């Protein structure tokens, strides 16, 4: 089980990402009040050291109910760049929400993978020095 702090963090993060994605809102880092339930087809990237897949699935379905798939980013940063690119391009037309919780090194390549695929961001937030959350437009 995740602790309360982590739970609160995930709740904010996923609710914000989902609500913004579904509503088409944009840009500045901010918290959303609530997710629009039942409309989300989401893809979530995460770095395993920041949480377990089961944590992500549980919390996403609690706070931003929808059809979520989670993908761990592992391996070299080169692997992560190409995996993100593949997932982002694959999500186009099949999902409406693309979010993630990663470390700054991974975020550097995730950001470029999404931008190089023609994507942009609803928000990018440094939750802590070593934890970045984001929601990308699809």
């Amino acid at each position, binding site marked *: 089980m995740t602790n309360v702090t982590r739970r609160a963090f995930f709740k904010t993060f996923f609710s914000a990402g989902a609500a913004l994605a579904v509503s088409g809102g*944009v*840009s*500045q880092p901010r918290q959303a009040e609530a997710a629009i339930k039942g409309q989300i087809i989401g893809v979530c990237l995460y*770095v*395993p*050291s*920041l949480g377990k897949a089961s944590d992500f699935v549980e919390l996403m379905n609690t706070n931003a109910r929808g059809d979520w798939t989670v993908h761990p*980013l*592992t*391996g*070299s*940063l*080169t692997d*992560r*760049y190409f995996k993100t690119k593949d997932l982002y391009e694959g999500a186009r037309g099949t999902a409406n929400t693309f979010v993630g919780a990663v*470390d*700054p*090194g*991974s*975020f*550097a*390549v995730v*950001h*470029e*993978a999404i*931008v*190089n695929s023609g*994507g*942009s*961001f*609803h928000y*990018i937030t*440094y939750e*802590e*020095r*070593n934890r*970045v959350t984001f929601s990308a*437009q699809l």
Partner: protein
Amino acid sequence: MSNFIALPKGVTEEVFARAIKEYRALLGDDRVRTDPASLQSYMKIMYPESMDLHIPSAAMYPRTVKEIQAILAIANKYKTPLWTVSTGKNFGYGSAAPATRGQIVIDLKTMDKIIHVDEELGYCLVEPGVTYYDIQKYIKKHKMNLMISVPSPSAIVGPVGNSLDRGAGYTPYGDHFLFSCGMEVVMANGDVVRTGMGDVPNATSWQATKWGNGPYVDGIFTQSNYGIVTKMGFWLMKTPPPGGYLPFLMKFPKVEMLPEIIKTIMPLRLSQVIPNACVVVNSLLEAACYCNYDENGKPTSRDSYYRGKGILPPQVIQQIIDKCNIGAWNFYAALYGSREQVALAWKYVSGSFKAKFGNQVEIVTAKEAKDDPNFEFRRQMMMGGRSLQEFTYYNWRGGGGSVWFAPVAAARPSESYKQVKIATEVLNKYGFDYLAEYIVGWREMHHIIDLLYDRNQPEEMERAYKCYDELLKVFARHGYGIYRTNPAFMEKAANTFGPEMRKIHRTLKKALDPNNILAPGKSGINLDIPL
């Protein structure tokens, strides 16, 4: 309430709206974007200044030279400044955000044609949106025996942008502008010029020789704002045959050994026994390169070693060296040629270092390195491969702030160590550690210092700004210029080179772009700001 997130200096909302209308008539709505979401990717900066100073007003995506000519006509009409990016990365040297608020980003990633790759003579001609990875794929697909020199972000950046900013790589062709050959440039007035032999009708040697007739002009289009480069040629190396590539690492235990290391490297470098732009990496940068969050149980950031305040104490640095099994200095280089040539060169190289340092040097080749990620990263870089391992640096301190301070040193033993001492003193004064590498070129060394900080802490960001500012001043006082910088410091960096050079830059700007529409502020060249 404005309809735009920013406006160019001196341009009213009404005038800007008219300009955007004309741009859209030319390119269509999809390729002229003013909405915040579309502009978000140009607002990720890593240097220590507020993003507010660098917000673009719009982004445009031309596909052809004709479209760029038409854009320039509109820009001249409405005086809307244009900030051109190729693939738009540049990380610690500035990302894709414009030097001043309100410029329109011309994003050339939509011009991504590989026009020609010549296997016989080893060169290519490409558009600005082509990445190194695109070229690598092309070479592989066509089974060509060629390789291209890449900078450290390798796959995800492109040769046009990198070379125009005079970036460096790690192969024998590591001085990327030096190994470029021929440009096509759209001037502010819409003229299209091809440099070198390119303007000869039906030119047959545009990428085969750098020099044309009269003054050589390619240099004025690098680190500048005198034109928009739409094609550029690059020389490619022949790939060594099997057994003809030998990357290696030498680890040295003490910081004070640097002058002797440089003294041993340079004769081998000047004689081309070591032919590549090799690197000498300090302990903390080498340690930071291991900070991949995937390696469970291994240290993943600076905090893994030290949670105290201020800079890392010497004993902690020594613990890091011991724990990571790295050197105080780590020298990466490679040998190229036939198997026999490499074997012979290796005798000279390893013999020189063993004779000088005895058991004080640890020599590592691929055999000993096995799957070490840092060795693999360097192995890839020195053969024009792809690896994004360098981005693990951003996990070291966290917070997304990184600015590369990059003075140049003459490749003399005394100079190398002097710069280390000066840099360490200034960085430590502001509470930052010294993380750096020397890229050893032909007769100079690019001293790449990564000033890592937390952008989300205003106090830390301010400290990082002041630190960079003082580094610039102190190094200039000692006779050192920097080879490249980010938009926050372009004006100040230009000043360190003296008023006469600034006058020449300005005279050229007035002659070639009198309306100041091309990237005002790039390298401190901006007709809006009096000298």
